[in-house]
């Protein structure tokens, strides 16, 4: 039983109620994983609605999905997967104490997220011009099915909610950049980078499900 040589300095990032940095890091990471489970159930409701209506109107889903632009959908998929790579590289940079690399990788991720949103914006505008609005405002005549609106209601809800998650992700990463520039992060403390990365991967994974379910079924 050796006495602690001196009272150890508690690092500044360590909150008062944790014993050590490891406990704080593990808790934060676990908290994020549990939160991601809630996100999956949140989107799960929409996926359930999708399953129900697709089994009711299978032919409608095939017809309506031709209205979606597979090319730009595929581009967006590539953009998001790329951003997942750069966010992973950002975490790696933080682990290696390369703060400059961390900031650069975060900026690349943010720009890719913007590219995604811009493409999404043009996709939406293009549909609005045709009169493809959700639900009762739907006026497009190009699909020979009287319930065509229901596909687009689901489309707008799913991609819209996903878009909101992308915007939140952009906000989080800008916040990370600000903190990184202040010198908060180092290889000893990069918890927020790690858990934002986890969140960003989930946003990516949801899109990877949305893309084939909405764009590729025809």
């Amino acid at each position, binding site marked *: 039983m050796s006495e*602690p040589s001196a009272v150890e300095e508690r690092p500044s990032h360590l909150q008062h109620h944790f014993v050590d940095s490891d*406990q704080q890091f593990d808790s934060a990471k676990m908290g994020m994983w549990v939160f991601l489970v809630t996100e999956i*159930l949140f989107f799960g409701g929409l996926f359930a609605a999708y399953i129900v209506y697709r089994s009711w109107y299978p032919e409608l889903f095939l017809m309506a999905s031709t209205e979606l632009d597979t090319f730009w959908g595929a581009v967006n998929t590539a953009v998001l997967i790329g951003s997942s790579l750069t966010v992973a590289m950002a975490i790696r940079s933080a682990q290696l104490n390369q703060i400059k690399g961390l900031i650069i990788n975060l900026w690349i991720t943010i720009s890719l997220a913007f590219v995604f949103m811009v493409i999404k914006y043009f996709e939406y505008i293009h549909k609005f011009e045709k009169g493809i609005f959700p639900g*009762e405002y739907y006026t497009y005549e190009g699909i020979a099915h009287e319930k065509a*609106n229901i596909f687009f209601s689901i489309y707008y*809800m799913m991609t819209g909610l996903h878009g909101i998650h992308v915007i939140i992700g952009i906000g989080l990463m800008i916040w990370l950049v600000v903190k990184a520039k202040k010198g908060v992060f180092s290889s000893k403390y990069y918890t927020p980078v790690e858990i934002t990365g986890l969140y960003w991967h989930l946003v990516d994974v949801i899109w990877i499900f949305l893309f084939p379910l909405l764009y590729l079924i025809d």
Partner: protein
Amino acid sequence: MPTSETPKSIRKLQVKRFKPEEYPKKHYLNSETGIWNWMTTVDHKKIGLMYLASVAIFFLVGGLLALLIRTELLTPARTFIDADVYNQVFTLHGAIMIFFFLIPSVPAALGNFILPLQLGAKDVAFPRLNLASFYIYTIGAIFTLIAIFTGGVDTGWTFYTPYSAQTGGNVLMMTLGIFILGFSSILTGVNFIVTIHKMRAPGLTWNKLPLNLWALYATSLIQVLATPVLAITVLLLSMERVLGIGIFDPALGGDPVLYQHFFWFYSHPAVYIMIVPGFGIISEVISTFSRKTIFGYWAIALSSLAIAFIGFLVWGHHMFTAGQSSLANMVFSFLTFLVGIPTGIKIFNWLATMYKGSIDMKAPMLYAMVFLFLFTIGGFTGIMLGSLAVDIHLHDTYYVVAHFHYVMMGGMVMAFFAGLHYWWPKMFGKMYNELWARVACVLVFIGFNMTFLPQFVMGSQGMPRRYFNYIDQFQPFHQLSTLGAYTMFVGFLIMAAYLIHSLVKGKEAPANPWGSRALEWQTTSPAPLHNFDHTPVIINGSYDYHKPMSEFQLGIADSHHDPLDEHHGDQPVDIQTETTA
């Protein structure tokens, strides 16, 4: 200071034993005072008290609304309010009691206060999220208030489509309020799960975890898994009203029954969010006041998880008459019966705990007894409603109303009061008047049965729920029910009076007024700002009533901050303990 790592998961701790200071001068209530400090506090105990004050207010509001309903129902026709006002009143009564009182009552109010204390932690894992959850709850409440004063809501607390998509009033505001409220519930759930996993004190292994924490753990799992589905449901309903997306609108190809599936996929598990933490409190109270080791520790612990699991598979029993396939009905009916098994296991284990115990009928125990009596009735009538043929007859009658009040009020609210009386000395360091506490409890018990027993009879004779008018033959039942409601109200007023009196003039509470073996009673009353002056080491189980009280001084691992010799403990002893990570 934990030292020398002996073989892997075992580590040696040097432990001193200390007695908690009696009647401390400095504790969490008188350090960091002032409005601003309270508003921005991240201390779980203060956040718990702020939640407690909020749920108390909502309980009062919801209760007054209930009295309005009961008063209106004194006569078969209009008594003093109009039918559409009546519809708004019962909607608000349900929504407020469920979303603003029952769901946060035990987890967010009592749970927040007691969970880190029972874990031997300084706080929950994410104190700032904890505070955020309180403010999110407040914002949700503000939205609901706006909804009430800008048109009201008359859909019933279930917001069934298509009516809720078309009716006037401010359904949108109300559903947004509940959407926001859901986040507060999710944050509490995430916080509790992580805290229980990561913040247990040295020596507090899973098989020593207090049953209250097993119950809160199961509850948090349900909160985390079910609440997001409610969120998407009310979001879709809001979009239905704003954009007319038509997912629940048959005219646009949607399906209103899908709404019911979504809604009950959350709201049935939500029933267990409300009741399971109550089970946790009852386990603590019964063991403490029977002076006996809890009987069937693992059976009680795992049955909480079993209820959480099965609770996700039974939502269809709310829709037996909504046109489900008869196969689905049979499956849901069967699964509903299964819930009775873990629940029964709990009841029998509690009874076995009391058997040959030296039972002390203090107020918390009295409430626990009321719980056992009323909850058993509520549970059995639930099994009846779960059987298909009976449910067709009883669906949407007062029988259902009586059933869920026996479970929710007779079960959960009584458990909440058991917990409130049990932990009151720890919260405020004051004792309440025991005699008046018992009087209030008996009054509430009598009033409760007077209110809801007649409703079983009415319901089985065909009195439909939510109706403004009724036929004359039901009048005596309704009048008895109303009289009972007022009796209960008197009981609650007495309770409010002696609790407030205890805050002002109550006797100071010792650290462990009940002679409990549980960890939260081994620190001072009220607790210090960071719960324990030293990191506690858990040597004995919290139900070890076969060991003498003198062994229940807190084991303390020397912490960084304190000079080693300041306190006069016994000689340090070495104990071996599993690591908690």
